[in-house]
């Protein structure tokens, strides 16, 4: 047994290496390392609340993050990405329909293209998703993990490694294409039938009047001037915060519908963000997808999104594109081949009623 004094930088490097990442190219506070740490925390702690997982990562990183640049909100956003892509699943607590927690999604893979596989899920007890016996290195890109493996051998090797194949169709399954107004109307009709909500403490709404270009600035508590139907979130004592659709009169909640409505096995945020996109579109303030050039890569474009989108939309975008660090105010960015831009633009327009704006500048 050896005792070795370390600087903060050395400790960070060792941590990154132990997470299975390249410590010479990856910073401890990078999205890749934070997501790997969240997956690791989940592998030991699930079922757990998002707050517990985020707290465990923040506590482990706090000493090494000398400038305190990593905030709870930032780690929470990365955790949301893991839920959206399908590494973790938000489900009702077993035996309790009203409370929701995070669970480990089973180790799985989706073929992005022949020979390219997106890895999903988390094994318990810190076990890696695949080991060397698969014969390929796992590539970490933002919150995603993938590997390249000959299409001839990949299914057998991945199956032997205990991974389940998810078909693209199943993984990408999205709601049917409806007009925004119909989605909003259906939700309002549900609220019409909902009972009195009573007092709801610590409710946070998404402000429909606030700019769609800055998501964090849209979340706030209701005020006396608020009347109408809002997408909102309410905390739970010992579970994940619950998404809901709430009717408010002069700042006072009157009726509430918890999300998800249709399928308890889907995350509430998927329905919440879709409804919010519909509300924004109906109000004439559609959310934006910006398309811009990528420096030095004429056949590539960068897609920027300024608000969160449901998991099925993230999965769709992630299948053809590679998530990259968002810049210039974006919340999510993808690097995609120019050949699929039209298809993606049609998808976000049809499914999330987005406005697509193409810019001539270089990223």
């Amino acid at each position, binding site marked *: 047994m*050896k005792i070795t004094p370390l600087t903060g930088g050395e400790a960070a490097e060792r941590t990154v290496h132990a997470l299975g990442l390249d410590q010479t190219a990856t910073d401890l506070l990078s999205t890749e390392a934070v997501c790997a740490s969240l997956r690791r925390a989940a592998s030991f702690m699930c079922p*757990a609340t998002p707050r517990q997982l985020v707290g465990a990562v923040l506590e482990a990183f706090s000493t090494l993050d000398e400038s305190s640049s990593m905030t709870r909100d930032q780690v929470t956003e990365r955790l949301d990405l893991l839920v959206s892509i399908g590494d973790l699943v938000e489900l009702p607590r*077993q035996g309790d329909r009203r409370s929701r927690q995070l669970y480990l999604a089973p180790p799985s893979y989706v073929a992005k293209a022949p020979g390219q596989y997106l890895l999903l899920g988390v094994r318990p007890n810190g076990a890696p998703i695949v080991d060397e016996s698969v*014969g390929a290195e796992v590539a970490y890109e933002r919150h995603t993990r993938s590997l390249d493996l000959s299409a001839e051998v990949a299914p057998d090797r991945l199956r032997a490694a205990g991974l389940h194949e998810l078909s693209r169709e199943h993984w990408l399954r999205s709601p049917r294409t409806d007009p925004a107004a119909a989605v909003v109307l259906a939700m309002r009709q549900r609220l019409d039938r909902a009972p009195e909500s009573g007092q709801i403490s610590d409710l946070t709404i998404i402000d429909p009047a606030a700019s769609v270009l800055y998501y964090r600035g849209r979340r706030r508590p209701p005020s006396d001037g608020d009347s109408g139907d809002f997408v909102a979130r309410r905390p739970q*004592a010992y579970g994940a915060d619950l998404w809901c659709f709430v009717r408010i009169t002069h700042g006072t909640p009157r009726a509430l519908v918890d999300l998800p409505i249709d*399928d308890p096995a889907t995350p509430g945020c998927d329905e919440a963000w879709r409804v919010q996109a519909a509300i924004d579109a109906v109000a004439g303030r559609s959310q934006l997808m910006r398309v811009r050039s990528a420096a030095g890569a004429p056949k590539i474009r960068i897609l920027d999104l300024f608000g969160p989108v449901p998991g099925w939309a993230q999965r769709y975008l992630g299948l053809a594109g590679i998530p990259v660090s968002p810049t210039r105010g974006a919340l999510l960015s993808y690097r995609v081949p120019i050949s699929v831009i039209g298809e993606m633009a049609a998808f976000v327009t049809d499914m999330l009623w987005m406005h697509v704006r193409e810019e001539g500048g270089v990223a």
Partner: protein
Amino acid sequence: MEGIAPGGSLEVLKYLHKHLDDKFQALHEHRRVLQPATPPVFALEHDLSGSDFDLLLVAVREAVAQGLDARFRAWWLPFVVYAAEIGYDYAGGEYWPLFAQKTPGWETSPGWNVSTNRNRIKQWFKRFAVEYGGAEPKGGFAANFSIIAWPITHAVMPAYLQQQLAQLLFESRAVLTMELLNDPHALGACLASRTSGYTERFQIFCTNQNLLGQVAAALLLGEDEESPYLVRSTLLRLVDDLTNERQSRAWLTRAKRSADLVRSSGFLPETSGSVAGSRGQHLPTIINPKLLLRREGGGWRPFLDLPDLTPLQAQHKQVDQELRNLRAKVEGHPRPLARGRLLYPDKVPLSTWPRPSAPVIQLERGSPVVNSLIAERCSITPGPWWVFRKQEGGVAIEVKGKFVRPGHEYVLAGWVESALPALPWAVKATALADGVDIFDLRVPPTISGAEISQLANAGLAVISDVSIQPVGLVPGSWDGEGAVEWLAGEPAILAVKSARSTEKCAVSVDRGTTSVLEWPASKPELIFALDELEVGTHDVQVALLTADTHPKLAGGSLAITIRDPHTNLEKPTEGAGIRLFATPARPKLTELWDGRASVSIDGPLDTKAELAISLRDDAGKELLQQRHSVVLPFSDNAWARLAGQELRKRKLLGAYEKAESCEVSVSRSGVGFASLICERGFHPLRWILIKQHNGGHEAYLINRTDGDGTQVQLFSVEAPLTGEARDSRQTITVPESGGLLQATSGNVTATIILPPEPNRLLQRPSDRPIVQYADNSLPELQRLICGHARWLNAGLPADPFAQHQREIVLNAITTALVSLAAGNRWAHLERKRLRVGDRRSSDVLEEMRELVGEAPSQRALAQQIASRIWQWLDSSATLSAGFANAIGTIAAANGIDDPHTAADFLLRLASRPGSLVGWDETERHRYLKCVLRSPVLIRAARFAVLGTDALRQASDGGS
């Protein structure tokens, strides 16, 4: 191979014998000097050249073809090598047919005596053991296969088990130490303790721990190293065969790399004051169960986090069987856990705070040795106070060091009679369990000396100057105060923080050598890593020092547990969205099919999932798959209904008979996946049923034992306790009304229920078994119990009519036993019950209530049962708990102190007496004597059993 002149095989055998004699003699001499134990010589280590080996094959075959007379038998070593080579190719089926297939003339040569020649081979191997220090078979396989165990042992590692060995080495790489690598026996024990998730055949191989350890140690050697346990040619052959398969190659390479690392670092565990254990105790640490509290509805509910007990398997062979099959009692939990549930990670709610005097976990009717092991290795911290650090999410985790820090929040739990120090910041909270008081503790940033003294009087400490915490890699577990866990091989990175100005920090682990580290200038913390910590528990002590290292300014400690990342635990961890449980754990295919095992699934409420059942043959090829849509959660009862409707369909019979394994899996895309593989298991004797064109069946026996002395008896449905002898080598025609076949060879038995011809049942529906019984005595009761067990535990084919016939027989034997023990008047009522059937069952039950007993206390008992049975319908556990409550006084009057055990025994005796054969014999006899002395006990139990059955039927019919 051709090339031996006629009659030349004798000369070749003579030449090879002498050559092999020299070789094995030299090997034996070489190994004899090795210490501490002499490694054995294996016949597979013949080291023959390719051409010599080809000569050997031809010569042996010719000798056999010529009748293996005394001339050939004088040169016996080639035959030993030949038999071992066939063992190497053995794939777990039948050895002798493989031998015969590769050796023309074996079993058919003129004047050939199969039994004599098989025994001859065994004698040659025995002689090999004596003259050359040859390996001797040990373990479960050797116990059942007295002849073929020899050639298979001398094959070192049959090819079909090699992939599993590679996987085992890979999965065990994190626990390798220099000491293990140098001690094959310890290595074998360590590896054998980690095989519970492997196939039964591999587990059987691993029961010979010495052999396992020697093979493993040899495989883990570096490329150019000589093994003291296997000659180089044999080792290379094993490695070559192993690495032919890509995944095995990757597993072995990775395991060898870990072993190389251990050897190159020269790492040896601390010997002075090491907590991790001493030589000969290379077991993964049993982690004591953890207590935790959860906030629920305004109060705190205690839970016990179940520990992984599977490492105890290395200490006693019964552990695995008992963990799999027995119910566990958790101190403070009101009901026993389902059979096998200890093999699944879980948190068990406690309704009563655990008593310090009682073992925290025990197996119901577990053997004393296993229960002692569990009690010894598995305990909670002593009271009277327990400290819990509040964490996010309404959970409080126990601080085993029993200390608090200023400014932090805790929950304090203590015995109700314990006097809490008068602290203004301790506020009583609601305890959602009996026997405990709970306080919310908000420790102020500053604590007075008087308060510190008061806490000290309660055995609690205050730590304020130094904190030690994990940083970087999120640990496997962290109580927020003084105990942290990592997996073996992970970097243990710690930060020491102190508000005091300090210049040096002394760090020691397990009271070993102290390292003095410079405190980084102008930093509030010192970071350091502990590398290569061995699996186990370690105590880290730190002391803050001034520049001249004296005096100590402040100190602190941290308990580090390095966990073995082994995969013994069943796969459905708590964190999975869908979890699949089996009762008992890891059931056999036959248990699942005949209803002795059940499956349940946990998952998000009201979520649909797909349940798939696949039958596979020996090579893993799918024979049949059924898919069902289920709604979660899916209970044992739901499984029983599905199994009753689907698994025993006649169309499945063919696939079921051929199947060697079954996979039950449940999935919901994106939510979860869980699966369970049930093997048929390795059976020396196995019955196969064949359906005939006329609707009848024939049965024949696959006999993998060494052949002679296998006895077969046929029991008919009409006389279910009387066996008629049959020839084990002949196909047996199944009687029209079905029956039971039992084959016995030594201590191995195989029984199967025989399906009837359905038309015969329709023609004679009122035929019933006749169970004769004699005097009201203990031996007679035992006979009926054993007879019941024979039918209860027999394999059940996938045929609904076979199950029907078995139930008729079981009911007849149970009725006879109860009639015998409960007295003549009760026997009369039992006959009446059979006559009237369901038509007037309520009348009979009323008469039974009257007849339970005449004394006031007995009448009160009957009344209590009658008035409460409607509350006992949910499950057998509910019935047992309710009946225990009712029977308590009368049981005590008959010298039975534990009403729960009494209830369990009596209810089994009155409904499924065969299930009592697994009970400790002394205890069974004691209870049976009580029943004979006081028949009211069995009358009450029978009344409760029939009463709940009748109510359940009425309820089912009504719904």
